[in-house]
């Protein structure tokens, strides 16, 4: 099993500077404000799962967590993208302390579920984007991959918190690197748990609908 360098309970200096700097930047650009609508800020172990349309999503979500919680919360990112070059790996792991997983894996040491479980077993929390990729379609939310279900089956004590990230796809669309300042909110919803005997697909669709229902936009025709 590859050694992860995020076992420490606190950030390195570089990670602290990065996290404070990015949160400040997120506030300047988006005025980001958390809305706790069904759950409360807490230091307990959680999997925050959110809609994904932009690299900025994880920055925005972490900006809504306290510094203490942030130091023990890691975003799950695709190794295919973030492991591509040494620079990207440095940004993802050494600066942002994310967990890199392979979407396509062959070697058992690359099994994403075991990698994510090992982080949970260290008492840390995860930020997960269950759509599996950045959503560039017109649809509000893509179907969920099964990771969320598998993790929750294996560690039922970990709370699953749906987080709706508003507007970030307009701030920093896929393929752009300069953000447009727009107001963003992150809505944290009520925890979702697998009901006894609930089927994988049923659960994933229910989790997806819970996340969708957090979208605070008024109903419009666009």
């Amino acid at each position: 099993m590859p050694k992860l360098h995020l076992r420490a309970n606190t950030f390195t200096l570089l990670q602290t500077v990065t996290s404070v700097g990015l949160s400040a930047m997120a506030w300047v650009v988006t005025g980001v404000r958390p809305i706790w609508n069904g759950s409360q800020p807490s230091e307990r172990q959680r999997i925050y799962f959110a809609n994904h349309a932009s690299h900025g999503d994880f920055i925005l979500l972490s900006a809504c967590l306290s510094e203490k919680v942030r130091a023990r919360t890691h975003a799950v990112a695709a190794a295919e993208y973030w492991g591509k070059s040494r620079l990207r790996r440095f940004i993802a792991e050494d600066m942002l302390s994310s967990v890199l997983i392979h979407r396509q894996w062959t070697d058992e040491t690359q099994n994403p579920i075991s990698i994510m479980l090992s982080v949970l077993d260290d008492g840390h929390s995860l930020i997960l984007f269950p759509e599996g990729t950045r959503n560039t379609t017109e649809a509000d939310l893509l179907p969920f991959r099964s990771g969320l279900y598998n993790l929750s089956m294996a560690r039922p004590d970990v709370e699953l918190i749906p987080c709706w990230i508003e507007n970030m796809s307009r701030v920093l669309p896929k393929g752009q690197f300069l953000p447009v300042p727009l107001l963003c909110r992150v809505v944290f919803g009520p925890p979702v748990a697998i009901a006894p005997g609930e089927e994988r697909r049923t659960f994933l669709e229910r989790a997806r609908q819970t996340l969708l229902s957090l979208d605070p936009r008024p109903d419009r025709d666009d």
Partner: protein
Amino acid sequence: MTLPPMQETVILLVGLVGVLTTASIVAGILSWRAPKPLPSTLVNLTQRINAWWVMVVAITVAFFFGRTGMTILFALISFAALREFVTLTHSRRSDHWVLLGMFAIIIPYQYWLVWTAWYGLFTIFIPVYCFLLMPAITALNGDTERFLERVSAQQWAVMISVYCVSHVPALLTLNVPGFEGRNLLLIAFLIITVQGSDVFQYIFGKLFGRNLLSPSVSPSKTWEGLVGGLVASSLLGALLSFLTPFSPLAAAGVAFVACLMGFLGGLVASAIKRDQGVKDWGHLIEGHGGMMDRADSLVFAAPVFFHIVRYFWT
């Protein structure tokens, strides 16, 4: 650096701090005697008064840095207002560079024109050049889906939140004979009468409001509130004429026109919010909604006030 004239500034500050302190004390006593949990009107009142304190401090600090301070302060206000405006309106992924240009080019350049007092370009940069070039860039991008709607929203966004707002610090560039070095007081006069008019309209509306002025646009604007607010703020304007180059009667007249424009600005802002299905522009200021919720009246009043002063007094 133009320092504000001392005597008037001290009178102004003492007056403002006096009014706000009274307001805070009254709100404190009301909250202390009210049943707990506090009714939402009272919570909102306290939040509004606190936000006023912040605004008075911000403007006072900018005041002492003269033209530079005012230009930077209103550039930041434009930034916040533009961000709210663009957030609320429809845009598509292909608009990214135009939207970015509004923040990264139009705001800094317009305020640079204010700071260097280049009046000729200041008045036409947005209504002529940006007006023509922004849709041209959008067309070059080739995305025609809801083209006119997107382009119009962009035009409105820069006109309202950048062009109109920039007329406040632009007051510092006017040469009023016999009034040299005192232009900062014109800004104080404009802001106090227009924001005061908002408060008066609110109070008169709450006390005597019977007949809704435009029920389909705003459920809170009444004829009684409007008339009471305009009369009170015109009197306030006459009272503050010592700040200005105007005679007391002219000051009342100028305040009347500015506050009437301010009222219309609030009405238009309500119509836009209603059209977009929201109650507030944003969440910047606790209790006040967004920047535009506070600045909508100033936005409409500033250009007209600027041109009245420029036409009759320079």
